[in-house]
């Protein structure tokens, strides 16, 4: 993971939260953000998007964030994409479980849009 953090794939089912997070990451963080509205959409598009980092919401209908990451890791073509979670549940056991799945870090919801980009950069820097 030597390349700079530039392109982020945001997987979030709530359109309003996604809009706020996208604006925060783009306008304040200066990242390129591609939004996927579901876990299935993320699995379909990740190969095409080739993100530097995936930000995954955990609680999503049909395919939750945990299952999305499991499937990403199970496929050799997508196993290498780094991912971090954004979730309302940041209990130590839940965070540990998400990290065991292969997440770089777990960010808490609700997030502060003014500091979200810094938190993402910090997680990225710690992982690299």
């Amino acid at each position, binding site marked *: 993971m030597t390349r700079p953090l530039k392109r982020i794939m945001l997987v979030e089912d*709530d359109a*309003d939260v996604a809009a*706020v997070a996208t604006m925060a990451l783009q*306008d304040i963080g200066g990242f390129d953000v591609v939004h996927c509205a579901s876990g299935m959409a993320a699995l379909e598009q990740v190969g095409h998007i080739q993100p530097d980092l995936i930000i995954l919401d955990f609680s999503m209908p049909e395919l939750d964030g945990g299952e999305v990451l499991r499937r990403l890791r199970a496929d050799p073509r997508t196993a290498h994409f780094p991912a971090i979670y954004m979730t309302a549940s940041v209990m*130590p056991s839940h965070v540990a479980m998400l990290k065991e799945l292969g997440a770089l870090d777990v960010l808490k*919801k*609700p997030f502060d*849009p003014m500091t979200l980009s810094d938190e993402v950069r910090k997680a990225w820097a710690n992982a690299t």
Partner: protein
Amino acid sequence: MMDATPPRWREPAVGTISAFPDAPIPDSGLPWFLERVAARWMLGAAAVLLFAAPLFVEVDEIGGVRNVHADLSNLTMSQLRPHLWIFALQVALVLIFAALAIAPYFRNLAQLREITAIARDISNRQVAIFNAAIDAMVVIDRHGRVESMNPAAERLFDRPAIALVGSSIDELFANGILYLDGFNERRGTPRAPAIVRQLEGIRGDGSRFEAEIAVSTVRLDDGIRSLLIVRDSTERNRAERIKDEFVSTVSHELRTPLTSIRGALSLLDHALGTSLAKKPARLLQIAKSNSERLSLLVDDILDIEKIGGGRLELRLEPVDVGDIVAQAVEQNCTYAADHGVRLAATSRTGPLTAVGDSGRLLQALSNLISNAAKFSPNGGVVQIAAERHGQMVRMSVSDQGPGIPIAFQSRLFERFAQAGNQPTQRSGTGLGLAITKGIVDLHHGKIGYETEPGRGTRFWIDLPCAEGRVG
């Protein structure tokens, strides 16, 4: 005048006293003292003869003396008179002693009857209460066997007492013996008098139910028993779970729109903050601060629900309490400044390490500091200190506020507790201190306070030292 002639013993003129067969009767015609002579059993009690006097008549049963033979022809009237007086005196004494001896017996007998009646009445009442109790009661002996149970217990376990008396407690509860052993180990400790636990109860048909048990020690003359008061808590637990799930779901569902609202307002403020006119800028600020307040309320509700349900997890590790103090002060300095209050932190030089979850300890201390700032007068100073306190590490927060009203002190750490006479600007969720106490309890620490009306309040949190734990 009495005849000085030595007593004449005549065979078999020397008689015997029926109750005292070994007592000799001299033929002197005078009263005589006896060595202690064992008696036969009389009226169910042993007696000892000490004194006797001859009767100068041949009688069979007078005053307990019999078969006494004396030769009246050898005595003059003047010789006979003192013996008659002595005999009369003896009879009187016998009657008096008999009255004195027997009266208490009858009095005691009456008392005994009365006491027995009272005891029987008390016993009947206790049994009636035991039998009428709505809660199931089971008495377990020291070997873990059922000694008795009331009808409510028979109904709860759907089995007659006669089928369970003498059986192991394991017949009634899954792992009942293990539970009772645990209780017995604590028996005699301050926590032992009544311990409430949840166990799985077993009915006669083998079906199970969630049983809430309060156990206490019964000390009887012939040994110790355990009294178990048992309730079927299945329905209540189910209702609690539904309530918890509801609160949890609502809180989580509130978080999502709150995330959007807070985020959108922050971005709007960022984009337009300086260009907005005074009124729109004020409205934006109101929306922002209230969305943050709502967000904190949701966080608090979720935290208190986790604490209440035993689901708050801690990541325990050695933490520098000085760092916690510094972070908490930094986190609250803006809030304190808004209230015209200054925060002053003092910490012992060098590391002061406790065992804890740094995030949760920061939350606990932060709650105390924000409370102190909220209740301090304008221009007041809130002192925050960290120090070693015996085997513990102590963090304390002192304010110069009005003190805690006495009427409120007993509810201070309860959920949604707020002093009723506080002005609205001091409003909060009323959960901060309950959460703080919950966090401290989970750390096996202590929380306390000293307060003085009109002078201020000092809260403190004591945490186990890292050295103590590690060592």
